[in-house]
């Protein structure tokens, strides 16, 4: 969201201070934009009257279309098995029979939505939360690792940003490597982190997962905060100098508060990235608990419905996490008087 291309959301959050087509603060390292793990886009354009219905209607229409495509796809993909069965027994099947069979297969190639919903209901509502079959239980495992990694990554990001803002040497030495670190596919390192930590005597998978998600999450925070901490202009810094403010006061009373909009924007990207990191950490490593592990187990046992249910659950988790950060942002902005 904060690469040097100013987008609508950043412009809005800065109260429209940034002039169109101009970088708020062109990142100077190597003169290029940075990669971000997750793109995030503009706010949906408001309808003329801006009421909820006119905004929701297009979204719901598209969602309905997606569900329709999903059903069509599952009929198409599952029909292969049905037709092969029928051919073996020498039967002729009508279209309606094929469709009916596609809806109820035990191991469909693409399970139709209602099967996934039934699985979700079974594993979320009908199962006790403490049971190992409950998706809530697995979500909790994933969530706790995500939050640990998110906290760690955010702290590292903030500290590095403060260092970069205050020390030219650090900025010149660290920033290129921070960018390169993000072009290394983290998944390449994930299995190794787990093995190494295990041989160093760290039990369980919580720590390695948290490290992986911190690795993905620190970078957006670092970039956003180093931009945010540098966002006060010369006039404001001069004013503090005329007040005789020392370095610490300048930081806490000017730089830190004015970095908040940038901070929350990068937190939103960071928390989504942290979740991706945790799930990636669970996928290739033979974990047995967590949403990624459910996907893995579903794959090993040839149970696509289980994979899809875990995916939907992960999506809900992502929505909840990003939504929470957005809510925090709104509250903070109101408290600090940023909101319009």
């Amino acid at each position: 969201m904060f690469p040097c291309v100013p987008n609508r959301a950043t412009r809005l959050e800065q109260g429209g201070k940034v002039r169109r087509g101009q970088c708020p603060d062109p990142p100077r390292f190597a003169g290029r934009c940075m990669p971000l793990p997750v793109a995030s886009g503009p706010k949906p354009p408001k309808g003329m009257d801006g009421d909820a219905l006119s905004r929701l209607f297009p979204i719901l229409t598209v969602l309905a279309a997606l569900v329709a495509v999903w059903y069509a796809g599952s009929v198409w993909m599952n029909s292969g098995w049905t037709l092969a069965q029928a051919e073996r027994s020498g039967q002729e099947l009508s279209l309606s029979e094929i469709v009916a069979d596609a809806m109820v297969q035990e191991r469909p190639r693409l399970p139709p939505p209602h099967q996934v919903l039934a699985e979700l209901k079974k594993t979320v509502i009908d199962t006790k939360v403490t049971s190992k079959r409950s998706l809530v239980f697995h979500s909790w495992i994933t969530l706790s690792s995500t939050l640990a990694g998110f906290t760690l990554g955010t702290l590292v990001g903030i500290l590095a940003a403060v260092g970069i803002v205050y020390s030219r040497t650090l900025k010149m030495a660290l920033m290129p490597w921070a960018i390169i670190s993000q072009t290394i596919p983290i998944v390449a390192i994930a299995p190794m982190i787990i093995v190494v930590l295990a041989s160093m005597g760290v039990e369980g998978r919580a720590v390695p997962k948290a490290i992986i998600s911190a690795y993905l999450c620190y970078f957006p925070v670092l970039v956003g905060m180093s931009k945010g901490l540098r966002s006060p202009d010369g006039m404001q810094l001069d004013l503090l100098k005329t007040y005789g403010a020392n370095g610490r006061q300048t930081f806490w009373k000017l730089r830190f508060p004015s970095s908040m909009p940038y901070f929350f924007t990068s937190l939103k990207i960071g928390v989504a990235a942290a979740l991706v990191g945790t799930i990636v950490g669970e996928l290739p490593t033979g974990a047995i608990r967590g949403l990624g592990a459910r996907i893995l187990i579903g794959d090993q046992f040839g149970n696509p419905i289980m994979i899809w249910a875990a995916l939907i659950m992960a999506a809900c988790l992502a929505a909840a996490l990003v939504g929470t950060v957005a809510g925090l942002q709104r509250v903070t902005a109101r408290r600090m008087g940023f909101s319009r």
Partner: protein
Amino acid sequence: MFPVLIAVVVWLAAWWLNVRIAGSAWRDSRAGRLAVPVIFGITVLVVWECLVLGLRVSPVILPAPTAIAARFAVSTEVLWGDFVQTALKGAVSGYVIGCGAAFLVSLAIDRSPFLQRGLLPIGNFVAALPIVGTAPILVNWFGFDWQSKAAVVVVMVFFPMLVNTVQGFADTTAMQRDLMRTYSANYWQTLLKLRLPAAMPFIFNGLKISTTLALIGAIVAEYFGSPTRGMGFRISTEVGVLGLDMVWAEITVAAIAGSSFYGAVALMERGATFWHPSQRS
């Protein structure tokens, strides 16, 4: 303990040198900007080597950089084969298909405000999801070879690319569009002469984000089944037999591949958006 001492000395000396460079007259020159991170990187390698030697770290936990380099030199052929399989066949083909498809879809979306309002929030949402989780499903659908890897990459890069491109197409002012209208430009002329160039920074932003995602997708997909070559395959099998020097050699390849892929797109961006404020130094 002697190597540890060397590590400390090297660290302090390099830091002193970097501070001097950063404070000197050529801190803004190209050489200075290049020298500082390079010195930092070399220092990290030297300190790593010394610490591994001095503290007698087992190669199962952390092999020394020289051991990794030796392994790299011995097995260039295997590494090249893995690189071709994963990066060129899997990641690049998926990247081209995914970004191309996203570009075309965003052109379609751009013509319909209704689709914009409906698809964009969903696209934004999906771009934040852990899509890597679909890897086992796609491997199941498309088989073990590079086609399934490309499919994972397509799904992963599609939405970030879509969101960025649509956003880019919306980034012209009413004044600019009105000007095109007074020239009586039709849709395609407006698109080619005004909106596409204006969208370029956003498009390249999406392309750059996608480079990293593409490699991640291709490697993760290999954990769920692949022919007996490929970076993800090699890493997971070598971790299994504790051949960590080979794992690090693969990571080096992944880092070089990722950085040069990203660098190539950034270079293209320089050529295509030389007029944008962020490209002027």
